[in-house]
């Protein structure tokens, strides 16, 4: 045996050096199979005949000698191997393996190539497969064990106790070993499952990439479709216009309001495109993973909103600009120009944007009038994923590119629909829905606007209404609370907006103010019908649905009110003042002066952090991320704006 393995060894090294040669040789060997087969067959007959003739000779060694003689003639290792394998088989096997179809297919299925056979690592498993087999087939040891116990008790005083007990001990030992094997089987299975999970996770990543790519293409097609639609519409419009050009001009000059009216948001309005496909990519990513990071502005983000995941994002910053972004590509779509001062609040609904500015005006925009993405080359930085070392410089280029190129600005210059300018103080909060817009201002009034006419239809003076309703209903505490909150100097409310947040639904309006009160108004009567007392600092964020109203305040707390009873149903506090908050059925997302967004999982009742500064985040960041100032979240898609003008997009 040793001699054979020694004679094989040089052959093996030879094979590894002439690996490619070997492949061609193998095919040669295959064509020569029939020949070698027959020759080996004849050789075997002679050798077995020899073993018959030679009396008392060991058939194995005789056989081996015969074969080693043959192997001397065959220098090439693979041929050597072939001949060996055929000469080792019996004639009936050779006949069967060449003639039976099931046999041939079986052989093809179970054939193990040589390189697999060569690669056999040391076995370091604690149990063998056969032990495992015995352990799993041999069931019911516990029963035996129990029987044994009974036996042990019964025979305590008997004469054969010692032998019986020794037997019992041996059996118990065996069972113990068996249990050990079973235990290692179980732990081995767990390890195996872990490995499979890891494999599946890797595959999942690949598929996710594919999904991302598909969605990119989808968006591109969607955009192309829109462009085609617009072109068709324009051509049709031109054809109609050619018939009566003068009349049309008259109309535009004479009845401005009518032309505005025609631009108005109506459900059937032109260009209100329905997306055919909704992006779902973020739903498949694990919560808290980063989708994108964009340097949107050079200054603190004061407001942001987006229409839907991977849709359009509108950001406003202290640098007095309002920019529109394509969330899918990360490209800038242009600026919304017109405000003379920075925008403090904005809302995006479908294609319409309302912006409220410190210049006391509210502007209303239609984003469907953009020309789509601006020049792709002009801002190639922002759609790259992850942090970049030269982002700042590129960003400067990017900004100059946007401002210097009239074409990119032209993309959004037609967007402006309305300007609402009755407020005499900066607009700090606004909300619009179904053609009605409500705004809150530093002049301590709320105004209700009709978007179809652009007129203010109602003005609600908060202090006056508060004092009158307080006098009639609430015995004066709400006025007192104003004084109370002003007297507290330790809270950072000197710079807080008087109307921190508001939201309306039909005739119901809720607003949160700097006195820490949340007032619920009835827009039909113009009266406050309920005040929610609890916050000890200015209310900065507010949102309600059909059951709950959630507020965030400078007093660091988030309170969840039950609208049916008017009482607090839940409340929790973070370490810093809440600057922004949004909730849906499953989570409350808020910005609380950290460099990550705080998320409260309403289903599990769990708090967690999502964002650049959260633990477990990327370690390779060049600098610590800035504090998150504003957050928005829809369907698990979170957008946060930071103090340094960076906008991060995450899944949550």
């Amino acid at each position, binding site marked *: 045996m040793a001699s054979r393995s020694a004679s094989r060894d040089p052959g093996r090294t030879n094979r590894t050096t002439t690996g490619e040669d070997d492949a061609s040789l193998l095919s040669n060997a295959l064509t020569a199979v029939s020949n070698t087969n027959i020759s080996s067959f004849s050789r075997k007959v002679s050798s077995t005949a020899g073993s018959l003739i030679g009396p008392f000779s060991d058939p194995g060694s005789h056989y081996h000698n015969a074969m080693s003689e043959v192997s001397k003639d065959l220098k090439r290792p693979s041929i050597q191997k072939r001949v060996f*394998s055929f000469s080792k088989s019996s*004639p009936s096997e050779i006949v069967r393996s060449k003639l039976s179809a099931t046999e041939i297919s079986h052989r093809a299925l179970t054939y193990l190539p040589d390189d697999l056979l060569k690669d056999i690592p040391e076995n370091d498993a604690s149990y063998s497969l*056969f032990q495992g087999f015995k352990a799993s087939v041999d069931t019911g040891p516990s029963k035996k064990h129990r029987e044994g116990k009974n036996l042990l008790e019964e025979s305590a005083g008997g004469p054969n106790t010692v032998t019986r007990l020794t037997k019992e001990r041996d059996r118990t030992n065996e069972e113990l070993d068996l249990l050990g094997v079973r235990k290692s089987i179980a732990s081995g299975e767990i390890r195996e499952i872990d490995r499979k999970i890891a494999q599946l996770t890797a595959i999942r990543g690949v598929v996710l990439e594919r999904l991302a790519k598909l969605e990119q293409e989808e968006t591109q097609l969607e955009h192309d479709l829109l462009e085609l639609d617009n072109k068709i519409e324009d051509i049709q419009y031109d054809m109609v216009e050619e018939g009566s050009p003068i009349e049309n001009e008259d109309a535009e000059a004479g009845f401005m309001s009518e032309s505005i009216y025609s631009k108005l948001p109506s459900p059937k309005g032109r260009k209100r495109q329905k997306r055919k496909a909704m992006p779902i990519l973020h739903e498949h990513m694990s919560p808290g993973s980063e989708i994108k990071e964009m340097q949107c502005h050079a200054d603190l983000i004061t407001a942001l909103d987006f229409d839907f995941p991977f849709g359009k994002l509108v950001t406003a910053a202290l640098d007095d600009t309002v920019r529109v972004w394509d969330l899918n590509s990360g490209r800038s779509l242009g600026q919304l120009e017109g405000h003379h001062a920075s925008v403090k609040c904005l809302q995006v609904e479908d294609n319409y944007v309302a912006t409220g500015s410190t210049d006391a005006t509210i502007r209303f925009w239609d984003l469907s009038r953009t020309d789509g993405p601006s020049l792709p080359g002009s801002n190639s930085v922002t759609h790259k994923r992850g942090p970049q070392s030269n982002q700042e410089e590129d960003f400067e280029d990017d900004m100059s590119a946007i401002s210097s190129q009239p074409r990119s600005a032209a993309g959004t210059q037609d967007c402006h629909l309305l300007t609402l300018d009755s407020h005499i103080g900066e607009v700090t909060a606004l909300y619009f829905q179904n053609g009605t817009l409500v705004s809150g201002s530093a002049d301590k009034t709320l105004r209700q606007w009709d978007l179809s006419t652009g007129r203010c239809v109602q003005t609600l003076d908060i202090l006056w209404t508060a004092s009158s309703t307080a006098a009639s209903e609430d015995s004066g505490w709400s006025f007192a609370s104003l004084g109370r909150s002003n007297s507290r100097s330790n809270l950072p409310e000197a710079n807080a907006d008087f109307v921190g947040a508001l939201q309306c639904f039909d005739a119901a309006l809720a607003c949160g103010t700097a006195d820490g009160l949340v007032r619920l108004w009835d827009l039909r009567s113009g009266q406050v019908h309920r005040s929610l007392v609890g916050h000890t600092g200015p209310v900065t964020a507010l949102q309600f649905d059909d059951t709950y109203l959630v507020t965030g305040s400078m007093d660091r707390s988030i309170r969840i009110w039950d609208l049916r009873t008017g009482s607090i149903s839940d409340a929790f506090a973070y370490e810093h003042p809440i600057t922004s908050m949004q909730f849906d059925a499953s989570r409350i997302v808020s910005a609380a002066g950290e460099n990550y967004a705080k998320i409260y999982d309403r289903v599990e009742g769990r708090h967690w952090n999502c964002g650049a500064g959260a633990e477990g985040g990327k370690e390779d960041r060049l600098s610590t991320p800035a504090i998150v100032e504003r957050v928005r979240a829809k369907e698990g898609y979170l957008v946060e704006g930071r103090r340094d003008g960076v906008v991060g997009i995450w899944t949550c």
Partner: protein
Amino acid sequence: MSSDNLPYAADAESPLKEAELEVLRRQYDREGQYVSIQTKFNYAWGLIKSDKATDQRYGIKLLTEIFRDAPERRRECLYYLALGNYKLGNYAEARRYNDLLLEKENKNMQAMSLKGLIEDRVAKEGMLGVAILSGVVIAAGVMGSFLYKGLTKRSL
């Protein structure tokens, strides 16, 4: 590998009861696509022990899969593959695997006894082959002589 970690060839000749094999098969089916190696082996070994050739073939197929999937079990698999192929009468394959195992572990009792068994069987079948072949040769000779005689008669 200690001596009781591998079954002897005799063990493979005693088939499991139908119900026992059924239990193994059900376990294997239940774990579906993510079947564990042990379960797969249990079923495969049950199949190899069976006295039906189709079962044995399927058992070998499963063992081949284990061999491919679990490198740490390859050494053991070699023995079972050799044993299964021996039972099926594929002595070339059986020898290929068994010799490889002996090359790695030249003191493996089970593999050594299997080697002996394979060689006995090959020798026996070889004898049978000689008998058949000689029979064929004789028959051909007789036929040939008859034909020759017939031809020579006709030519006369």
